[in-house]
């Protein structure tokens, strides 16, 4: 339920294993093979980056809070688990998801605003009639089985930031990791608190996309896992590399240690955190190869060719 992630529809119906997710997507593509072959699309991560940018632009124009944008991104992800992307006009889906998310996150705006702003961003890709968004809303809600209440990692971050003495810089870094994770499959794979804790951990090390630093993270996580009661004989007091002279470095290590102790005492899914870390790293790597122009062309091609912009 709304306060309880464990009983939420998110955990019961919208959290998958990697295999399940791959299978669902395979099935979707199989059912539309001709379409898939006719309109090749770049890898999913790059699609996600593109959508993220586009929805971010729309959100900015309408002055929409990040929390609602994030909810919309999750809606889009869920929707495209059920519906083949080439059957839809992604610009319409994006606009509608944001319109719906704003109502759910209690910051609604008039449907007309969304259409007007979306049309000024993507002039020849969207119908001017608001009823198209209204219709797409039915489609979205129906595919999501009206399960619209979303649990986000932001809440965990807010409630834990003082426990870990996070600085504003660290909080901001964790926030940006959380924002970024909406471009990966992680929201469909892991509980929001697992993601939030991963983001906090990544915020505690400098330049998290540096591979040596990742080793530090993984080491901290593995150690925390071993230090759990009943697993291994660790004492929890070991410090990975305790010889730092730099004072700032020192506090940072202390924070990582405190964090590791917290994890060891908790029942948090540490393996999941390790996987989240790795997924995020490969996401950042993949991001470097992103080409906006190619992306835009490929999406617009099927939208135009199939006349999806006309209705």
């Amino acid at each position: 339920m709304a306060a309880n992630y464990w009983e939420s529809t998110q955990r019961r119906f919208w959290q998958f294993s990697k295999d399940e997710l791959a299978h669902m997507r395979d099935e979707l593509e199989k059912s539309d093979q001709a379409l898939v072959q006719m309109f090749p699309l770049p890898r999913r991560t790059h699609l996600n980056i593109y959508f993220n940018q586009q929805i971010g632009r729309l959100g900015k124009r309408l002055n929409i809070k990040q929390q609602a944008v994030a909810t919309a991104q999750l809606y889009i992800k869920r929707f495209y688990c059920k519906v083949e992307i080439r059957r839809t006009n992604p610009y319409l889906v994006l606009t509608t998801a944001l319109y719906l998310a704003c109502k759910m996150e209690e910051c609604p705006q008039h449907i007309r605003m969304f259409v007007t702003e979306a049309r000024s961003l993507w002039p020849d890709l969207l119908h001017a009639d608001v009823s198209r968004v209204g219709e797409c809303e039915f489609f979205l809600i129906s595919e999501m089985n009206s399960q619209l209440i979303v649990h986000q990692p932001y809440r965990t971050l807010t409630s834990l930031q003082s426990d870990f003495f996070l600085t504003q810089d660290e909080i901001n870094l964790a926030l940006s990791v959380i924002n970024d994770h909406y471009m990966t499959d992680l929201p469909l794979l892991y509980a929001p608190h697992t993601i939030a804790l991963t983001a906090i951990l990544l915020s505690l090390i400098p330049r998290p996309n540096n591979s040596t630093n990742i080793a530090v993270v993984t080491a901290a996580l593995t150690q925390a896992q071993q230090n759990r009661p009943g697993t291994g004989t660790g004492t929890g007091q070991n410090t990975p590399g305790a010889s730092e002279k730099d004072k700032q470095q020192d506090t940072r290590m202390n924070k990582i240690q405190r964090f590791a102790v917290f994890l060891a005492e908790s029942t948090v899914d540490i393996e999941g955190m390790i996987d989240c870390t790795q997924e995020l790293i490969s996401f950042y790597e993949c991001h470097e190869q992103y080409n906006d122009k190619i992306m835009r062309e490929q999406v617009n091609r099927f939208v135009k060719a199939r006349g999806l912009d006309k209705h």
Partner: protein
Amino acid sequence: MSLTNPSSGAASGPASASARNQTLKRSVQAAFEDPIDRGGNVGYQSKVRVVDKYKVIGFISSGTYGRVYKAVSRQGQPGEFAIKKFKPDKEGEQVQYSGISQSAVREMALCSELSHENVIRLIEIILEDKCIFMVFEYAEHDLLQIIHHHTQQPRHSIPPSTVKSIMFQLLNGCQYLHSNWVLHRDLKPANIMVTSSGQVKIGDLGLARLFYKPLHSLWSGDKVVVTIWYRAPELLLGSRHYTPAIDMWAVGCIFAELLSLRPIFKGEEAKMDKKTVPFQRNQMQKIVDIMGMPTKERWPYLSSMPEYNNLSMLQPPMLHPGHHHHHHHHSKSAASTSHLEKWYYSTIGAHSSTSSPSSNGSLAALGAEGYKLLSGLLEYDPERRLTAAQALQHPFFQATPSGGGIGVTTGCFEGLKVAYPQRRVSQDDNDIRTASLPGTKRSGLPDDSVVRPVKRIKEA
């Protein structure tokens, strides 16, 4: 109009009535049928059709949101169902998708998420032909109907064990909602359902919302919440940041109504003046008449309420005719004296808190703890008002002598010899696409209950 009075059809004779019934049955069914052709191969189409899955057997009620129908499954699902059909924005002419109202979005999302024995259970939602159909479990009764039944001659009070069970289950449902960060914001007898086995189900979450760390103040979202008679004083005084305590005030009002069979604070609603929300002077006066004037001692934040200054417009309670208009300092304590205790004991038919609880059949059996619970719920200061969790722990619900010796039964009809009449459903639903009904209408209730105020929600 026959819409609220099915019996008027019978006056035209049995034969014609049955013929007429046939046509009307079809028109009820027609309400679910396809208003427009399904031409075109693009666009949204429902995978399920309401008429394929459910057979509509009657019309229950209508409101600003749309209409509620009674139905049974065509596919062998046992039991009966209530289908709430949200009316599209424009009725009559060609219906267009215009975006779902925020209140419908909230209700769909919350009902899909909630699961508790004292909250009405959602079966499924079908989005079809630009309409939203929410299918709920059917409840045979609601508190408005039960209260109404007891006002029928001879007027007789609701048995104390029933009152107690209803209150316990109602609080239990509230506690579940509040612990899940859900504010109901429209608790009133008409929205409290009771199944034929006596299970209480909180219904109509059309005004409910989550209140966990809102991005904006709750007030800025919906300027007016809760039906006027059940609206908490902090809302009447314009509070921007309200809490679950507003639901608890409404629960207190419902408790009082179960005892006296009429709304305890039956004020008249001041109409919205253009876009400004008026001070509900008459409603506040009704509260003051029984509860006394609120004071800073009883409610420390009172003076910071936006409408605080309007309190001076009110008359102190029980003002004698010819009394001086500006009451003097020494009369201030008299003005703030609560008359709730007097109200309670005269209502339950006991003369004072010392009178011993008599037979279980009389409300007097609810005793002093009943008063304490009521006054805890009708506490002016929202911070001191009982929470649902606290109220559930109240001695009133223990089967001790002070609690009237009555334990809480799981079904509120347990031990009753007579059954309440079934909900009357009407076959008299003319074409839904042309009908435009203002306010709330219910099938099978006399006009007097129809004029009850409807909740109003003004979305920003």
